[in-house]
């Protein structure tokens, strides 16, 4: 097998072990666990002992969508930073202006976007 792929074999084995562990403990608790009676009261959603009101999944604030959108944007930025970080020192010797200037301009553009989101009060949760 290719040695690059072989590196990932232990990850696969660990995944199987983890899945096996999670699956077997869940199965064991079904087999060994006490079987109680199913009553109508027991099947009510827990709301501190009160009868549940309205649908189970309440409407949520649109802010959460905004966070998810911004996350996608900035997480991709972070992913782009890693390869740059790794070769940074090495590139400094060859072409310092390119490696530093390139990333400063990239971060600058993104920082403008960050300031825009800030100005639009996307991170302000008090409202």
């Amino acid at each position, binding site marked *: 097998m290719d040695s690059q792929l072989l590196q990932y074999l232990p*990850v696969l084995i*660990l995944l199987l*072990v983890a899945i096996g562990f999670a699956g077997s403990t869940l199965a064991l608790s079904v087999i060994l666990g006490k079987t109680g009676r199913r009553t109508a009261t027991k099947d009510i959603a827990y709301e501190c002992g009160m009868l549940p009101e309205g649908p189970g999944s309440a409407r949520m604030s649109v802010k959460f969508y905004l966070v*998810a959108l911004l996350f996608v944007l900035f997480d991709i930025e972070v992913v782009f930073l890693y390869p740059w970080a790794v070769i940074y020192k090495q590139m400094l010797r060859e072409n310092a202006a390119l490696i530093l200037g390139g990333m400063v301009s990239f971060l600058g553009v993104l920082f403008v976007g*960050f300031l825009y989101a800030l100005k639009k009060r996307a991170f302000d949760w008090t409202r």
Partner: protein
Amino acid sequence: MDAIYYLDPTTQFVLFSIVKIVVAFVITLTFVAYAVLAERKISAWIQDRVGPNRATPFFAQYLPVIGPALVRLGIFQPMADGLKFLLKEDFTPAYVRKVYFWLAPALTAIPAFMTIAVIPFGSTLGNPNNPMVIADLNVGILYSFGIVSLGVYGIVLAGYASNSKYPFLGGIRSSAQMISYEIAMGMSVVAVFMVIGDLNLSKVVEYQGANILHWMAWKQPLAFFIFLVSAFAETNRLPFDLPESESELVGGYHTEYSSMKFALFFLGEYANMIAASAMMVTLFFGGWAYPWGGGAAQGFLGGVGHIVCFLVKMLVLMGVFIWVRWMFPRFRYDQLMDLGWRRFIPLALVNILVTALVLAALND
């Protein structure tokens, strides 16, 4: 025992891997069980209480002095807890979304255990071809960030599957919090990798190996601080435990869960805490290297020494996790988001910029 060295390298590699995985997995599970006990005991001491001191197995009475002492320390408590989790009623309420309800606990626990794969927990045990890391990936840190992100799915699914208001709110809060702090966390370590120049975590340890002065925590204190605080948010622990803030959401996303399904969430949380501590030890505190340095181990005992050194450093950081829990009040949600987005992200960016400039200045 020597027969193993006559096998071809691939078979050897697979066999070594399986042994390492099983041992690491069992050790992690034990650590999780006793982290719960440590949490309860340390909480008790901080609050001037006694803590768990009752669980007594039948064989404790045959151990003359040690038996009662161990019982007082609560050493048998995790065993009793584990047994109880197995034997309690595993109730699936009628109103839940069944498939996701069963999937969510497994999806929380599995990524938590997967993170340990890339962490070098020791040098070698005498055989230089067999480093003490489960998977020595060249993309190390990217792998662990990827896996940590997967943990969000379990929590979101738990909130969605429960089809009930408290879990729903807990799940949605938790996901927003975890993805927010993931950015700050990811950005903070970029500066570390700029200094080191390799994403492989074994190389990271090697770089810091010389002695205590080479540890990354001194060279990148701001990165360490951001990483530490983000780790608290990522593992949903106080002062950022809004997803399960008892006083408002009962238990958050696991309110409707019982028995082993609940235990898997608990396990996942503590396994994440262990993984975060291990990651911090690797990135900022020299991994398995002794404070006075020394390089890779020559013999079996030296290797064990390195593993012990790693575990001790990890335990200290886990102690910090537990300690902080009782030192700070819980943040408000807007304060939490404010800290993550408006403080840490610009701060991490500035840290990257400063590191870049300093490295450029030093180069000439």
